[in-house]
């Protein structure tokens, strides 16, 4: 027992060799991801930047007006905020950030929502996935940049990687929770009409959990971006 306590487990060495193994043997995959990712991000940023800033401001303001139930206040602050950013000469940075948020949110949804659905349907999967999610969330976001940089080098892609890892747990959790919190009666109603598993998913589960899922993903994307922007390697 004491032996065990005194003898240090060579965990750092294991991790080192693990990371080395991954970078060596999977470098092909990583570089493909890196190249494709970079291309997609650049394309998105360029597209966004191609829109004249003033037009973009108007579009976003109008969008804000409608998204927030036609309240003038939100639209007004959106406009003021955007004008201020432009005034400070940070428009290009803003477009970069928006790209990061969009891409990482998309990836988080593509991976997280199906995982959340699986988790909501099976106790076993929930019992396995939940502690992993807990572990992922206890780490500060920038920690994920270290392996990301090791795998992908420096650039936007490791940023997305870290963002995705950071925003994945809430996405999975909210999907799982959203589906599990649908009242028993509604589930019974749907079942009593003879639904199939897919019908249940698309006609009841997803429509009901939709708000739960999307209300969290975008704020989390933003949160992680803010978190990362102060640590992100210069590019």
């Amino acid at each position, binding site marked *: 027992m004491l032996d065990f306590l005194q003898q240090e487990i060579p965990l750092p060495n294991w991790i080192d060799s693990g990371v080395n193994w991954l970078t060596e043997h999977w470098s092909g995959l990583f570089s493909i991801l890196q190249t494709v990712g970079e291309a997609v991000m650049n394309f998105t940023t360029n597209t966004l930047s191609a829109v004249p800033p003033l037009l973009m401001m108007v579009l976003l303001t109008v969008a804000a007006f409608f998204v927030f139930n036609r309240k003038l206040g939100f639209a007004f602050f959106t406009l003021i905020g955007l004008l201020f950013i432009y005034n400070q000469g940070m428009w290009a940075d803003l477009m970069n950030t928006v790209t990061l948020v969009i891409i990482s949110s998309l990836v988080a949804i593509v991976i997280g929502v199906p995982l959340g659905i699986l988790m909501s349907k099976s106790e076993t999967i929930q019992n396995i996935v939940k502690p992993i999610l807990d572990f992922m969330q206890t780490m500060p976001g920038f920690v994920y940049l270290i392996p990301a940089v090791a795998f992908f080098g420096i650039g936007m892609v490791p940023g997305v990687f870290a963002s995705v890892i950071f925003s994945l747990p809430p996405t999975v959790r909210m999907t799982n929770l959203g589906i599990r919190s649908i009242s028993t009666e509604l589930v*019974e*109603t*749907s079942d009593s009409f003879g639904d199939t598993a897919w019908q249940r998913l698309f006609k009841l589960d997803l429509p009901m959990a939709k708000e739960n899922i999307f209300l969290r993903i975008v704020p989390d994307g933003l949160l992680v971006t803010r978190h990362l922007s102060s640590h992100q390697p210069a590019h």
Partner: protein
Amino acid sequence: MSRVRVRNLTKVFGKRTQQALEMVKEGKSKQEILEQTGATVGVHNVSFDVEDGEIFVIMGLSGSGKSTLVRLINRLIEPTSGSVYINEDDVSKMSKDELRQVRRTKVNMVFQNFGLFPKRTVLENAEYGLEIRGVGKKERQQKAEQALDNSGLLSYKDQYPEQLSGGMQQRVGLARALANDSEILLMDEAFSALDPLIRRDMQDDLLELQEKVQKIIIFITHDLNEALRIGNRIALMRDGKIMQIGTGEEILTNPANDFVREFTEDVDRSKVLTAENIMEPALTINVETEGPNVALQRMRKEEVSMLLAVDRKRDLKGSLTAESALDARKNEKKITEVLDKNVQKISKDALVTDIFDLIYNSPTPLAVMNENDRLIGVVVRGSVIGAMTDKTEGTAEKEGVNIDA
């Protein structure tokens, strides 16, 4: 043969269900089984049949297993043992696909809190069953609109459930089940979340509907008055067992055990007892064979001032008061000439609660008629009041009198 037959249906919750099941078969009580195995018996060896066009009420307090029982019928809860036959098929042994077909086409359910999907409009809710069945958009819309129209809700079809009152929401729930046009309707405390006035309306609507569509309705409730009002037959449940099955009257007048008797003691009798239960034998005069002298003598003997006039077939002709009998004797008129023809008639099935108003506005007793419009008795004010205060024994006595008459 009945289309819905439940045989030895048992549900055990928890672990060690096999052991618990053995104990159920040995006839051990729920309490004993819980103590020995830790398993809870939800439904305990239940058997019953439901006939076509019948509203079969399963009644019990919370925890009596009634909601579990109804869910065993469409297998929202898996039975531990026993069978549920719908037509010739045993639902409890069906594959998932067969079960799905039964749920889609044969059995539908209405829920206590309406079970409406909040993100769907009223119409989309009403379409749900048909949508699941894969009915084309046009056809299902048309059927759903028809169902909504029948419940007078068509103008609300584009609203969302939360915009409707509770009563209207449950009408949508019912319309949704009816749009599916299945033969069996399970209603789990369907009206319990509604306030009393609305609930009454819904009960009336359900009875009216049942006259038209003649479905097999299995209705769960904890409210005995509701059970008595709408049920053709009632199954009274306690601790997962059925205590008694019978018509409302059978259960009230012939309780199978103390539990049933206690349960039925608080019933509002005015809603259960009919004119036939409380009527007294009618004092009559036969207008074809008897004259004013006989009438006056009978009044004197019975110490009343009025007789009902009938012919040989006991068809009601009117009422005869002492004054008009005297008038007939003095002026040598026939009885038929002096009769008061305005006697209030009521059917033998009229509920006491409905008789109240009539009797307080009527100077004469009410004549109780059978289905062939023959006089079978009278209801006087005293008998109505008596019926309201009597306990079970009193009612039985009164019925004895009626049988003698």
